[in-house]
């Protein structure tokens, strides 16, 4: 008896702008309009267009309402749901046509996207296993258990060309076959949901929007390698993801899709959750295993690799959330289907979290081989405020900055490595002309210095020395030779650090040195920050010809560094000036500048 579905985004982005309250208000307004029986409200995962949140989509019309506020709900219920009149002022502008609304697939943001890992995000209620089943959920597990041998499953995954989505890009099928080849009946399946890159929220969104897809894939992996137990290692900072995952596990157990003798077969598999306390290094697979075991989250030397000797010393596979989310589709649609998407060596799609200086902040999934330009300019809607694009940072603290000259590179694992960055887990931070590349490198290095576990010397001491060098550069105390010294230290650390964290920590510095050496040199030689970011190299100056002596800047200066008589040119005392920029913001005659 339900004729209309109201989908309210319950992802973290929309949640933090108040979507949880929208849900209750909808229920209340529908009840008072007498529509509760015929209109159903569903809380879903992320739609992707987080910049326009909170998002509400009403079916069957497919009306996409953006930035919905509590007070808008009465209008949506009375106008749209009761009388059938769209509330045009709230519709996402790109979907509004003459007298009808366009499908979301036709908008710039969604047109080039291909949702595989995110297929159910924003479509199903993640807290209801039946909705997952409606979209062929657990059919892949059923197919694997009833029609395929474990080796067939591994062959399908291998043939599909799926590579690890956590960043390393190791072939998933190969990883599984190593673990399957180990003898012994005690093996483990782990899911790495310790997404720690600043600005990355791909895995979080999958767990929040479609937790069952990960559980189903873990069970399939368990069947393939001969494991009967799995752990999801997820950070405690993701409360919504953890909650939905717990509900999903409960529901799957109740439905008999986890537990003993799944679907009447001999196969048993169960999953438990381990919460991470937010240490970045625990996203490294061997540190993650230590943490699950209850030990300190230090990396272990490899080999032995986890596939041979992993959790509790037993053969273990560890895959990332997004990798798992692809698995059920591959089993159901076949390896050829998956391999038909993407580039020669990188198959399928990749989810990216778009952030920074970009209009459509949000979550996108595109086929491998889509160019950076398409992602940033078309899907992302370009740079706000008419600013000029400078670089895009991929791969978080382990990645690098890609300049405008490489914008037409098709994105895949190997191409990104060739231009000095990495795919990483999928964070993509866009920078414009106002970003200083030395400052960006320092930002990421500060992060890795904080997160270094301290076990190996190159990382513990080496990257701290790098940070000191960067500090000297941005404060104008470095020499040109310091740039070469910095570069050679980078290579030394890359070669000698114990785990991925240390080996990749120099990447942000190396890539900015490679593509933006002129900016480093400006800091070192000219003692100048071209983007006007590094405060120690800036001085503020009032142009006496432009200054009208209105005293506004002097009144706004927090340290009383500006003096001057009314209607006469003012002067900044650079000794007192703290370079906060309040004078620039307050001046109506553009007389204040930094240089």
């Amino acid at each position, binding site marked *: 008896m339900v004729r209309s579905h109201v989908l309210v985004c319950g992802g973290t982005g929309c949640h933090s702008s108040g979507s949880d309250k929208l849900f209750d208000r909808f229920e209340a307004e529908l009840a008072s309009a007498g529509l509760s029986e015929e209109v159903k409200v569903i809380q879903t995962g992320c739609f992707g267009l987080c910049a326009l949140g909170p998002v509400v989509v009403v079916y069957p*019309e497919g009306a996409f309402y953006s930035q919905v506020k509590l007070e808008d709900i009465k209008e949506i219920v009375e106008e749209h749901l009761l009388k059938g009149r769209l509330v045009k002022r709230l519709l996402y502008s790109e979907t509004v046509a003459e007298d009808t609304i366009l499908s979301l697939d036709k908008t710039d943001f969604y047109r080039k996207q291909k949702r595989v890992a995110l297929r159910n995000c924003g479509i199903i209620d993640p807290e209801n296993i039946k909705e997952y089943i409606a979209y062929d959920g657990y059919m892949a597990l059923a197919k694997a258990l009833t029609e395929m041998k474990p080796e067939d499953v591994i062959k399908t995954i291998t043939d599909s060309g799926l590579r690890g989505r956590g960043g390393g890009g190791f072939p998933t099928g190969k990883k599984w076959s190593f673990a399957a080849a180990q003898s012994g009946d005690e093996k483990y399946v782990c899911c790495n949901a310790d997404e720690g890159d600043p600005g990355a929220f791909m895995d979080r969104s999958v767990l929040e929007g479609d937790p069952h897809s990960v559980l189903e894939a873990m069970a399939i992996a368990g069947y393939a390698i001969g494991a009967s137990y799995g752990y999801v290692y997820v950070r405690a900072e993701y409360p919504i993801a953890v909650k939905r995952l717990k509900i999903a596990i409960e529901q799957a157990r109740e439905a008999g899709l986890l537990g003993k003798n799944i679907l009447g077969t001999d196969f048993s598999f169960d999953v438990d959750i381990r919460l991470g306390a937010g240490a970045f290094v625990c996203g490294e697979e061997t540190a993650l295993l230590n943490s699950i075991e209850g030990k300190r989250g230090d990396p272990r030397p490899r080999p032995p690799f986890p596939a041979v000797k992993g959790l509790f010393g037993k053969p273990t596979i560890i895959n990332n959330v997004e990798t798992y989310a692809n698995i059920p589709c591959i089993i159901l649609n076949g390896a050829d289907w998956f391999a038909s998407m993407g580039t020669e060596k990188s198959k399928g799609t990749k989810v990216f979290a778009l952030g920074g200086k970009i209009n459509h902040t949000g979550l996108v999934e595109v086929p491998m081989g889509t160019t950076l330009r398409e992602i940033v300019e078309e899907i992302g809607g370009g740079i706000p405020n008419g600013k000029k694009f400078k670089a895009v940072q991929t791969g978080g603290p382990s990645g690098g900055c890609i300049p405008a000259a490489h914008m037409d590179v098709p994105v895949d694992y190997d191409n990104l490595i060739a231009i000095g960055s990495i795919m990483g887990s999928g964070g993509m931070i866009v920078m414009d002309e106002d970003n200083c590349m030395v400052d960006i490198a320092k930002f990421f290095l500060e992060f890795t210095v904080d997160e270094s576990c301290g076990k190996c010397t190159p990382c513990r001491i080496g990257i701290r020395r790098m940070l000191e060098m960067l500090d000297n550069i941005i404060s104008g105390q470095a020499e040109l030779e310091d740039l070469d010294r910095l570069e050679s230290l980078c290579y030394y650390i890359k070669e000698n650090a114990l785990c991925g964290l240390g080996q990749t920590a120099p990447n942000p510095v190396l890539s900015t040195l490679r593509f933006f050496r002129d900016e480093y040199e400006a800091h070192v030689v000219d003692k100048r920050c071209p983007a006007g970011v590094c405060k120690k190299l800036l001085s503020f100056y009032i142009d006496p010809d432009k200054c009208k002596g209105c005293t506004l800047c002097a009144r706004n200066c927090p340290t009383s560094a500006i003096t001057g008589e009314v209607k006469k040119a003012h002067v900044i005392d650079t000794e007192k000036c703290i370079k906060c920029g309040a004078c620039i913001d307050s001046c109506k005659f553009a007389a204040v500048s930094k240089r």
Partner: protein
Amino acid sequence: MKTLAELQALRDEMKTKIGVRKDGEYRMRILVGMATCGIAAGARPVLTAFVKELETRKLTDIVVSQTGCIGICQFEPVVEIYDADGTKTTYVYVTPEKVPKIVAQHVVNGNPVVEYTIGANAN
């Protein structure tokens, strides 16, 4: 759930319940006049009768929606059905009792129920 058949049965049952949630083309659109005149004349029960009938018959490629007043308030409740080719049929004085016949004859078999249309009732 102990067998594959049970899983499949649950999936098929759930599919009909979420059919409304899709972007894209529908085979046919049923628009019920839900302006003040329509509601006053009893359009609400007609709308729910259509939804119920389509659900019973598992017709997920048909969309039921509301529309405003088209200016023939004396004929309310008015229901317009758009076929895939854009042909419009206007039914007047629709009651929940007339709905199953409209669905069976027009929606399923493609033959409009002439005696309920505006053409047959105008004079």
